[in-house]
C-alpha cells in the first residue's frame, strides 16, 4: 500500500483476507485502520457480514466477525474498513418495529430514516451527572412491590432457571408497571439473545394484547441465529434506549433475555481469540463487559427520561454462583430470584425473596413514597421468613408434631406468606395498599412479641389482633 493515499480513501477500498480462524479474519497490507473500527466483509455471493477491529498493527488488522465466519473463503472475501466504530441509526420510529439481532428489519418494512448515528458502545455516564433513582414503579406484584421494590432507573435482573416462568413474570411487569402519580407509559425495548422462537413469540403476543406493541421495539437474535451476533444485540438495544431516554426524554424499560446466552457467546469468542480464561472458561473481563451493558441504565440530571433494565438470565443448573448470575449480581442493583421448589409447589410468581434484593428500595419506600410502615414491614417479613426456613429444616428432622408452638406459628406464617402473599395471578395487579395490608395480615399470624423489627407504634396501628376481633 503506498503511503500517499490519504486515509479517507483507504476506507473505501476493499482488501483481501489472508486468514480465517474461529470468528476472526486476518487482513494484511492495511494502513490507517483504527482500533475497534467497524468492518464490512463482502462475500463472493455479494452478501455482507459485519465485524470490528480487535487489534491492529502497522500493516495488519485482526477483525472479528459478529455473525460468524462460516462460508467465508479468504480468496474471494473482501473487507472494507469504514473509518468509524460500529454505529446504529436510531430513531423513535423504531418503536413498533421488529428487527433481527443486527438491527435489520424482520417485518418486511424498510428501516426509518435515523435521527442520529450513535456509537453502539455508548460512553460511561459521569457519576456527577446522574440523578439518584427514587421513583417507585408499582408492578402490582406483591413480592416485588413490598419486598424487592423496582425503582425507575434501576437495573433489576430476574435470575431464573430453565422452565421457570420468567417470561410470564417479565411480561406481567411490563404490562402492569406504572408510577404512583403518573400514567406516562414506558417505551419497551426487548432484546432477545439466543432464545427460542416461542419465547420471542410469547413476548410479541403479550405486547400486542396489552396494546403496547406500538411503543415496543424488538431485537431478536433467536436460538438458531449466529451466536456472535448475540454480543451485538444488547448493544443495539441500549443505544436505542439511550436515544429515547436522554435525547427524547422518554421512560424506557429494557428487557434483555437471556444474558446467559450472551455470556456464552462472549466465552466462545474469547476462546477463539486464544485468551487466558478465568472462571469456568469465561474471560477475565466478563465483569467489565457486562458492566458496560448494565451501567447504561439510570437517570441524568436535568432530563426527564430514564432507562430501567430488566435483564433475564437462566442460571445453568439453577446455580446462582455460576459466573453469569454471580457477576450480574455484583453489577446490578439487586436481583429477583426464582425458585424451582416454589414453582413445583404451584406458586406463581415463584419468587424466593430471601436471596432476592432491591438495592434501591431503601430510598424509594416509606413515608412520602409508599407508606410509613413499609420499610419495617418488609424487614420483618424477611426476618420472619428466614426463620421459617430454619424451622422447616428442623421439622424435617424431628417431625412437625415435635415442634414447639412458637415454631409452629412460623410454619403457618411461611405457608400463608408463600401462598397468599407471594402467590397471585398472572393477571392480578395489586395496589400498594393491598399488598402492604396483606403483608400485615400474614405477619399477624405471629405473636406481637416476635415482631421486634417493627416499632410499637406501627404494631398498634397495623397488627391484626385476632384476640381482639
Amino acid at each position, binding site marked *: 500500500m503506498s503511503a500517499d493515499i490519504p486515509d479517507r480513501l483507504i476506507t473505501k477500498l476493499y482488501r483481501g483476507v489472508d486468514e480465517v480462524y474461529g470468528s476472526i479474519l486476518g487482513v494484511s497490507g492495511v494502513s490507517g485502520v483504527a*482500533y*475497534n473500527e467497524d468492518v464490512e466483509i463482502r462475500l463472493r455471493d455479494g452478501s455482507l457480514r459485519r465485524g470490528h477491529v480487535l487489534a491492529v498493527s502497522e500493516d495488519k488488522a485482526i477483525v472479528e466477525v459478529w455473525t460468524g465466519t462460516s462460508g467465508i473463503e479468504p480468496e474471494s472475501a473482501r473487507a472494507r474498513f469504514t473509518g468509524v466504530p460500529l454505529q446504529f441509526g436510531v430513531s423513535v420510529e423504531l418503536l413498533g418495529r421488529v428487527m433481527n439481532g443486527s438491527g435489520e428489519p424482520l417485518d418486511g418494512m424498510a428501516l426509518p430514516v435515523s435521527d442520529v448515528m450513535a456509537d453502539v458502545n455508548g460512553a460511561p455516564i459521569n*457519576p*456527577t451527572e446522574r440523578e439518584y433513582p427514587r421513583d417507585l414503579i408499582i408492578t402490582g406484584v406483591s413480592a416485588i412491590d413490598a419486598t424487592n421494590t423496582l425503582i425507575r432507573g434501576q437495573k433489576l435482573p430476574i435470575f431464573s432457571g430453565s422452565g421457570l416462568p420468567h417470561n410470564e413474570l417479565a411480561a406481567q411487569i411490563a404490562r402492569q408497571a406504572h408510577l404512583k402519580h403518573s400514567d406516562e407509559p414506558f417505551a419497551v425495548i426487548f432484546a432477545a439473545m439466543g432464545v427460542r422462537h416461542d419465547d420471542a413469540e410469547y413476548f410479541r403476543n403479550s405486547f400486542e394484547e396489552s396494546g403496547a406493541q406500538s411503543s415496543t421495539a424488538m431485537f431478536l437474535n433467536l436460538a438458531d441465529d449466529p451466536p456472535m451476533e448475540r454480543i451485538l444485540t444488547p448493544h443495539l438495544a441500549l443505544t436505542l434506549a439511550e436515544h429515547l431516554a436522554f435525547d427524547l426524554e422518554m421512560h424506557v424499560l429494557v428487557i434483555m433475555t437471556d444474558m446467559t446466552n450472551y455470556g456464552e457467546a462472549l466465552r466462545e469468542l474469547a476462546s477463539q481469540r486464544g485468551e487466558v480464561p478465568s472462571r469456568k472458561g469465561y474471560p477475565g473481563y466478563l465483569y*467489565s463487559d457486562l458492566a458496560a451493558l448494565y451501567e447504561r441504565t439510570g437517570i441524568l440530571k436535568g432530563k426527564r427520561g430514564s432507562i430501567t433494565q430488566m435483564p433475564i438470565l437462566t442460571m445453568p443448573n439453577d446455580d446462582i454462583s455460576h459466573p453469569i448470575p454471580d457477576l450480574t449480581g455484583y453489577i446490578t442493583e439487586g*436481583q429477583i430470584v426464582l425458585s424451582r421448589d416454589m414453582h413445583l409447589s404451584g406458586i406463581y410468581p415463584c419468587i424466593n425473596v430471601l436471596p432476592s434484593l432491591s438495592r*434501591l428500595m431503601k430510598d424509594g419506600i416509606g413515608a412520602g413514597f409508599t407508606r410509613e410502615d413499609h420499610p419495617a414491614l418488609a424487614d420483618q417479613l424477611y426476618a420472619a421468613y428466614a426463620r421459617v426456613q430454619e424451622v422447616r*429444616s428442623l421439622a424435617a428432622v424431628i417431625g412437625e408434631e415435635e415442634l414447639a408452638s412458637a415454631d409452629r406459628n412460623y410454619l403457618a406464617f411461611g405457608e400463608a406468606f408463600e401462598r397468599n402473599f407471594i402467590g397471585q395471578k398472572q393477571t392480578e395487579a395489586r395496589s400498594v395498599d393491598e399488598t402492604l395490608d396483606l403483608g400485615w395480615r400474614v405477619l399477624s399470624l405471629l405473636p406481637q412479641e416476635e415482631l421486634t423489627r417493627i416499632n410499637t407504634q406501627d404494631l398498634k396501628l397495623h397488627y391484626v389482633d385476632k384476640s381482639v376481633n
Partner: protein
Amino acid sequence: MEVGKITWISGPVVKVRISSPLQMLEQVEVSDMHLVGEVLSIRGDEATIQVYEETEGIKPGAPVYGSGAPLAVELGPGLIGRIFDGIQRPLKDLAALSGAFIQRGFTAAPLSRETKWHFSPSVSIGTALTPGQVWGVVPETANLQHRLMLPPNVSGTVTWLANEGDYTIDTPLVKLSTVQGEVTCSMLQRWPVRQPRPIRERVAPSEPLLTGQRVIDILFPIAKGGTAAIPGGFGAGKTVLQHALAKWSDADIVVYIGCGERGNEMTDVLIEFPKLQDPRTGRSLMERTILVANTSNMPVAAREASIYTGITLAEYYRDMGYAVALMADSTSRWAEALREVSGRLEEMPAEEGFPAYLPSRLAAFYERAGRVTTLAGNTGSVTVVGAISPPSADFSEPVTQHTQRFVRVFWALDKDLAAARHFPSINWLSSYSGYRDDISAWWGAHQAPDWQDLGKQMMAILQQESSLLDIAKLVGQDTLPDMERFILLIARTIKEAFLQQNAMDPVDAYSSPAKQVALVRLLLHIYDRGRKIIEQGCPVGRLQNEMDLWPEIVRARATVPNDQPELLQELRTRVDAKLNVIGKDYGA
C-alpha cells in the same frame, strides 16, 4: 515532546516504536487526542503503554508524547469535598466540558488555579526547614487546617516569604536557599502515585478507629493506621458497611475509592454526604471526604490506577499529622484490572489468570497503611479498609487468600446472614481482629476499663450458641436443658439487640462508644442474673415470658438516642425488678 509512534493497539494496551528516550512508568499522552497513559515496559526500541482512556479509533502511526515524569497527582488545598476519576481528573469539571457522558481527550486540572485560599505563614525569614516541615497553613474547610509542607526531598533556609493573604495555589509563597540552589514553593505539589510518600518511622497502632458500628468496635476493632478486609458475595453488605465507615468513623479525613463499582453508588455518596453531619464537628461530612470514582464502565486501566491515586492523597494528609481512613470498594475490581492488562501483555498467568505479581502488589498497597511519625515529627495515620468481591462468594479465591495475609482485621460477610437480613452480616465466628490487645489500653483509659473482657464474654456466649445450635438442629431446642436454652435465648438477643445494626435507621446507624458499652453491659447483666435464677430451678419459659421486656431490649438500639445512654440504665432497673419477682420464687 513526541517520543515515538504507535505500532500496535489492542484495547487499553498499545505498543510504540520509540524515537527518543522514555522512562519506565513515565506518564505519556497517546495520539492527538492526548489520551493519558503510562509506560509499562521498554524492550529495545519498543515500549508498551497502558492507556487510561478508551482507545477506540486510535490508529497505528499516531504519535505518543512523553512527559519526563511518572504518573503523579496534584496535592494542595481544594482536594477535600471533590470527586476525581482514577487518574485524578475532576469529574465535575469534566461534566462541564463534555456533558453527562465522559468523552475522551478532555482534561481539567485536578485543583483549581482560580480559587484563592487564605494563606498564613508559620515560619519567618531565616528559619531552617527540614523535609516535610510546615511553613504555612490554609483553612481548607471550616474544620480542617491544610498544612503546607516542604516537599520530602527539600530542605533549606527561608529567604523570602509572602505575606498573609489570599492566593491561588500556583502563586510562589516561599523561597528557600538549599544546597541545590534556590527553591520556590507554592501551595501546589505533585507526587508520583506508585511511590509511597516517605516517613520518619512507623509507630505501633494504639488507638482504635471508632466506627460507631457495634460489632466492629466491641468485637472486631480496627486501629488507626490498621488494615482490614471486607470479603463478601454480592448483596452481603460490603458497600453499605464501607459507606457507614466513611460516614461515622472518627477519622479526620476520609478517602473513598469507588473502584470498578456502580455509578449510582457514587451518586448516592455525592447526594447524601453533604447532608449528613459529622457527629464530632457538627459540619457536613463532605467537608472531610475525598472521592475517587472509577466506576465499572469506565476504562479498566484507570481503575488499576485509582487505588494508587487514592492512597497518595491519603498519605499527603497523613503527613500533615491527620488520621486518614481510606475505603476501597472493591479491591477485587482493581485486581481484575491488573489481570486484564496482564492478559493483553501476554504475561504468564498464575492462579485464575491473575499475574504472578498479584500478591506483591496487594502487599505493597496495604503496606502503605500505618501509623507513623511524619518527616516533620508529627503523628499521622492511614487506615485502609478494602472490600473484596470473591467470585461465587468463595473465600478460597486468590484475591481473598492473598489479602488475608496482609491485613490484620478480617470482617467476613456471610450471605446467609444477609439473606436473613442480619446486617452488618459480619460472621462472628470467622471474622477476627489482630488489634484487640493494641487498643485495649485506650478503651480502658477512655471508655470502659473492662472493654477487653466485655468483648470476650460476649464472644464466649456466641461460641457456645454455635455448638448448641448444632445439637438443637437435630433434636429441637425444647429437649435441651433449661440452662442451654437460656444461653440460646441470650445469644439470640445479643444478635438482635447488639450485633445487628440498621444502617438505614437514623438512630441505629451510629452508636456512640458510651451507648455501645451500656448495651453490652445490659445484655451481660441479664445473662448473669438469669443464669443464677435458672441454676436455682426456674424453667427458662418463665424467664422468657414473664420477663416481658425482651422486645424492648431488642428495640433499644433504635429507640435509645446516643446522647442518652442512661435510658439503658433505666431499662436495666426495670429488668431487675422483673427478675427480682421471678427470682424470689427460687430464692435467687
